[in-house]
């Protein structure tokens, strides 16, 4: 494992050009030849969140402005995690042509997805943030914690993505199962509602949801206007490290076999 890690770092450094090319490819290609171009990355979540804020603020009888900030703070980490995980599931399968013809450290495929999603997410965060301020949201110094929140979330999502990218190669049905699972996870994660809203029989399930501390990392500074409590920080750091170590271990153990299974 240790030797594998050092080799991985050297190879990653040597193929950093390919990595940036793959990131650019994902960011550029999506909206090529559309009139709004890259702006769609900002418009799309913006419209989606506006509709959700309107519907659920009415449904839950909440103040629209407060609920919009609450929802936005939960949707940002969710959207990022969701895109990294679902896109990673096809990371190796979609690059079969390349993997079978030329040697590249395969980690760059899921890694390029995580980086591209991070750029997307950071930009839509900025756009939403400006809008929140425009409609009269409040700002606190805790906002400077957001980069740390992003870093922890990135490490966690990338770790999960690594494992999933390998898993789908061996078990193709998983791509479809994953879509359903992610939809279920969305409703089981406190994004539309507060952490303690689901009680009773569902309560225990919610309590074990690993995404909760990551949602709290964003909700603390943006909605609660304070740096998240130490417990949240510790839990999210532990989960990130765990996800990354497990993801890398699975990936490095299997990466040589996948070319025979694509």
């Amino acid at each position, binding site marked *: 494992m240790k030797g594998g890690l050092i080799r991985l770092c050297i190879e990653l450094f*040597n193929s950093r050009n390919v990595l940036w090319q793959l990131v650019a490819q994902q960011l550029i290609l999506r909206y*090529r030849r559309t009139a709004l171009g890259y702006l769609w990355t900002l418009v799309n979540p913006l419209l989606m969140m506006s509709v959700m804020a309107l519907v659920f603020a009415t449904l839950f009888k909440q103040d629209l402005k407060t609920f919009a900030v609450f929802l936005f703070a939960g949707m940002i980490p969710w959207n990022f995690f969701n895109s990294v995980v679902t896109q990673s599931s096809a990371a190796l399968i979609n690059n079969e*042509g390349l993997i079978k*013809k*030329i*040697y590249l450290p395969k980690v760059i495929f899921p890694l390029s997805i995580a980086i591209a999603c991070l750029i997307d997410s950071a930009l839509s965060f900025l756009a939403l943030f400006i809008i929140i301020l425009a409609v009269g949201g409040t700002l606190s110094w805790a906002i400077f914690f957001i980069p740390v929140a992003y870093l922890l979330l990135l490490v966690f999502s990338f770790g999960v993505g690594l494992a999933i990218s390998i898993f789908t190669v061996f078990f193709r049905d998983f791509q479809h199962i994953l879509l359903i699972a992610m939809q279920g996870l969305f409703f089981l994660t406190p994004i539309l509602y507060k952490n303690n809203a689901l009680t009773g029989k569902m309560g225990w399930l919610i309590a074990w949801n690993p995404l909760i501390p990551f949602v709290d990392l964003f909700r603390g500074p943006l909605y609660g206007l304070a740096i998240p409590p130490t417990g949240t920080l510790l839990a999210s750091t532990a989960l990130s490290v765990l996800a990354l170590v497990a993801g890398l271990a699975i990936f490095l153990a299997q990466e040589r076999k996948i070319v025979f299974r694509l």
Partner: protein
Amino acid sequence: MSNICVKNLSIRFRIYHDRSPSLKSYFANLFKSHSNDAHSDFWAVNDVTFDIQAGDRVGVIGHNGAGKSTLLKALCRVYEPTRGEVHINGRIAPLLEIGAGFHPEFTGRENIYLNGSILGHSREQLRSIESGVIEFAEIEEFIDTPVKYYSTGMYMRLAFSLATAMHPDILILDEIFAGGDASFIKKAKARMHNLIDNANIMIMVSHDHELIRTLCNRVLWMDHGTLIGDGEPNEIIDRYLAKSYS
């Protein structure tokens, strides 16, 4: 100096007889022992050993499915050895399939950077060869058009020009030939010969035995995954042809 050392190299493929088992049988087999798995083993390369020194021009011959391309892919690290070892000294240029990694939505120029980085060139190197590649491929007019609108000839010319723009230590060729009209083929052949002359080691797979006789000073003969001949081109090719026609 470059050299390649292959020791007891074996590569196994699993052939799955039933690619998509029904969900029922999948779960039914989940708890059974794996002894009756629906696959059989196929050794594409079986216990192959050879050394290649600087200056060698090696041709690999053999019938279809003899394991020639798998052997080359193992040298390029695409396939990890199931058993045995491959040691390589020198910068290797895998020209297994030109145009691998071209993205149809990207323009010709963007593909030079994308594909070039996949081939292992740095941004600065690519900037320095960009104009030369475009000129050689004769696609100045269309370089900023997505390659999906290219004709097959234009696509091949761009891929070939880019793949052959750098001089590697170790050149690995799998039936490489350039598309295009007669004048381009002539130009491309000259460029290929120049590339081969400048390479420290060249390994090629080809069914064109005359080409191998002129370009190579050594021939490896593969048969059903094993190496059954290694030596002087004329001798090995004659033996191979004698066997094929007998």
